[in-house]
């Protein structure tokens, strides 16, 4: 157990040492700042940071892949995977340690947006409960995004390939699955056609609908289950990839 934290600590340190970590952080603050100044901090508007949180995933789907791309790829490329995998810890511990380390950085990332909440508190009196649930939603969503990034990083020794693959999947979940179903509706003749199944699956997998409740201050079980099960699925897949790699 303590080995998992040792691993997580190193991973977190690695992200803070690399320029990538700071670039991700800077870009995140830039775009959240834009969201904040365009949608939240406007004269005459209710002091509600909700929109800022609701659209957060549109920024994160492009940033998280860069945060996670090196986690396994760089270990494969440099050969450090050998010292890691011949240490007395199992594959599951490795996956969990790396995941927790990346989540630590992710928490710092979304935590930095607290600055805008503080700024808002100077100008008005926002309702803090939705802020809290929004952060809970962001953490759960982050788990899913980071585990997807981790999975693709474990698949290849090329960082760029890992980043691009996870970016494609996250863009699908974050943007495409949001709009394609609306477009498909026109072609659906009866409700049990395969197209309808595709449409419903896509709508279910889209990230935004699961974030709406959180930004309104509602913790709905279905959304928690969606993110948690997705996270567990991709962590398990990462474990499977690590396990199979050694048999090749």
């Amino acid at each position: 157990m303590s080995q998992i934290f040792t691993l997580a600590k190193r991973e977190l340190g690695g992200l803070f040492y690399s320029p990538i970590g700071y670039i991700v952080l800077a870009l995140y603050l830039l775009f959240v700042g834009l969201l904040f100044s365009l949608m939240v901090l406007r004269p005459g508007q209710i002091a509600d940071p909700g929109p800022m949180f609701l659209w957060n995933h549109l920024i994160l789907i492009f940033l998280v892949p860069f945060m996670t791309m090196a986690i396994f790829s760089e270990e494969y490329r440099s050969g450090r995977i050998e010292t890691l995998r011949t240490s007395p810890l199992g594959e599951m511990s490795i996956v969990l340690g790396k995941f927790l380390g990346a989540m630590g950085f992710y928490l710092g990332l979304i935590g930095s947006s607290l600055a805008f909440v503080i700024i808002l508190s100077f100008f008005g009196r926002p309702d803090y409960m939705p802020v809290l649930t929004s952060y809970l939603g962001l953490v759960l969503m982050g788990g899913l995004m980071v585990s997807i990034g981790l999975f693709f990083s474990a698949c290849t020794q090329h960082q760029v390939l890992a980043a691009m693959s996870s970016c494609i999947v996250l863009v699908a979940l974050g943007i495409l699955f949001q709009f394609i179903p609306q477009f498909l509706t026109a072609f659906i003749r009866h409700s049990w056609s395969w197209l309808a199944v595709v449409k419903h699956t896509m709508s279910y997998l889209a990230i935004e609908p699961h974030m709406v409740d959180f930004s309104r201050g509602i913790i709905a079980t279905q959304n928690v289950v969606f993110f948690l099960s997705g996270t567990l699925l991709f962590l398990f897949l990462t474990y499977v990839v690590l396990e199979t790699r050694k048999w090749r």
Partner: protein
Amino acid sequence: MPEQYDIVADKLTKSYGKFTAVDRISFEVPRGSVVGFLGPNGAGKTTTIRMLTCFMPPTSGSARVAGHDVFYESMAVRQKIGYLPESTPLYLEMRVGEYLTYRGKLRGMGRADLKKAIGHVTDMCWLSDRLRWPIGKLSKGYRQRLGIADALLHNPPVLVLDEPTVGLDPSQIRETRKLIGNLAGQHTVLLSTHILSEVELICQRVVIIGRGKILAQGTPDELKSGSRTGDKARLLVDVRGPTAQVKSALAALPGVQEITVVSDGPVCSLQLTGRVDGALREQVAALVLQRGWALRELRSGGMSLEEFFVQIIDPGASSAA
């Protein structure tokens, strides 16, 4: 049950699809000895080592390290083995002390033990003055030492070093060899290399592998003397005298099968092949003096480990050479 051997490989095999990288190899490493694992590039050294260190499971066969099976008791093996991979992979952004602390904690070492162990291994590997250096700023030699320090950190009974002297300058190579030599006795060391002088200097036993198979094993002396061409040893003689007469006189000596002139001139150099032993050398010396020629040099051209290696790796090439 005390075991005599710390590493026992039994018909160890690794195949990648149709390609067999390591083909049913069996060998033992006696406890407390330094054993050289020799072979040309691509012979299967690293693959074998990766199976012994539990990095990948064997396709078939088995191996025991420090009394534990590498497949069924993988975690126990990992606790008892210190491994330096070929490329000495390190985290370049970490500091030396920080890295060793990280590695020790990964192995589940306690804080007090770890502090003591770091002091010990950094002294041993001449790293004490570099504890606070970022690894990225260290020279290749220091990185190599750090890799060895990491392998030694948990005081494992078995050490596996994959080409530890590659890329070092001559003085660093000598230091590293000295370090490995010092480890013998307390640790069992399997040293993979393709540098032959290294093996002669520090290894008590040698295992030679080529194209995935074991070609020979034994002590360096055994390999050199018990070579397949035992009765074709050579003697090199430099004599000041008329070449033709010297040649015919020496050819008449018993045991000489073949004689060739290496260089001609006032001082000629001849190579004798046959059953060359001490008696023949004395006879050659006596004969030369008796004829009134001057003996410049008399050198036994016994097989070097290098020649043996070349011969065993590629039997066709040695006859051509």
